[in-house]
């Protein structure tokens, strides 16, 4: 009986691991989500910094709102989110916001239209999404 129980318990644990693996595979959409988030953040930042006024605000902010709406709809339509993704996503948004404003305020004050500021700045604001996608893919 105890041998049977032991095998039964081992089988249950194996099943739990298998189901956990299925959930993690079903959560791979978050790699695309985070990479798209990073790329959209970079494009938006470039538009704000390098296009002339008022097209920079119209295109930069408009594109960002469209991208966020699309990404939110994409995320909401997914059947599963791995454990910890909500917290991870909140961290991604906070990191992006910190970097965005750290690049934006000096940029519009001292570096309007200066590629040497805005191109590295765009790469910087893309980093949370790109690094997040990379780490997510490695899970």
């Amino acid at each position, binding site marked *: 009986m105890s041998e049977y129980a032991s095998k039964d318990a081992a089988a249950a644990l194996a*099943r739990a691991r298998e189901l956990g693996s299925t959930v993690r595979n079903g959560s791979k959409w978050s790699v695309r989500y985070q990479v798209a988030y990073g790329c959209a953040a970079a494009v938006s930042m470039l538009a704000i910094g390098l296009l002339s006024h008022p097209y920079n605000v119209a295109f930069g902010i408009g594109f960002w709102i469209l991208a966020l709406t699309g990404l939110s709809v994409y995320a909401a339509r997914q059947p599963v989110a791995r454990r910890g993704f909500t917290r991870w996503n909140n961290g991604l948004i906070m990191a992006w916001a910190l970097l965005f404003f750290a690049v934006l305020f000096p940029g519009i004050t001292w570096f309007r239209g200066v590629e040497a500021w805005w191109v590295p700045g765009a790469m910087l604001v893309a980093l949370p999404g790109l690094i997040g996608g990379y780490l997510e893919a490695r899970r």
Partner: protein
Amino acid sequence: MSDAHSGAQASPGTRSRPGAHPRHGLDEVIHAPVRFSIVATLAAADKAEFAFVRDTVEVSDSVLSRQVATLEKAGYVAVTKGYVGKRPRTWLALTEDGRAAFTAHCRSLRAIAGEDGRGDG
């Protein structure tokens, strides 16, 4: 997976009995095979759609509904209904109590299986 134990063990509130053998640490609500699979699936997720859990656990809608109702009654699963576009969706998630119960249940399973040194299931 069969659900042969579900009827006999659907008694939330009488989950574990004190005793030396690790089997006393098993949670009677979670122990039923289908419910164990549901909880194991949800333990790896923040939330999962009803259809995803149904397909992953390989049960029918009605079986899943019944088992989820038992888990919800025990306070282990939270059910959220909403819409994506015009389509109604049902989301399932483990509660904090459910997560704690599953962790303890897996600890007991590992003790029974002699896997005490391995990672969490």
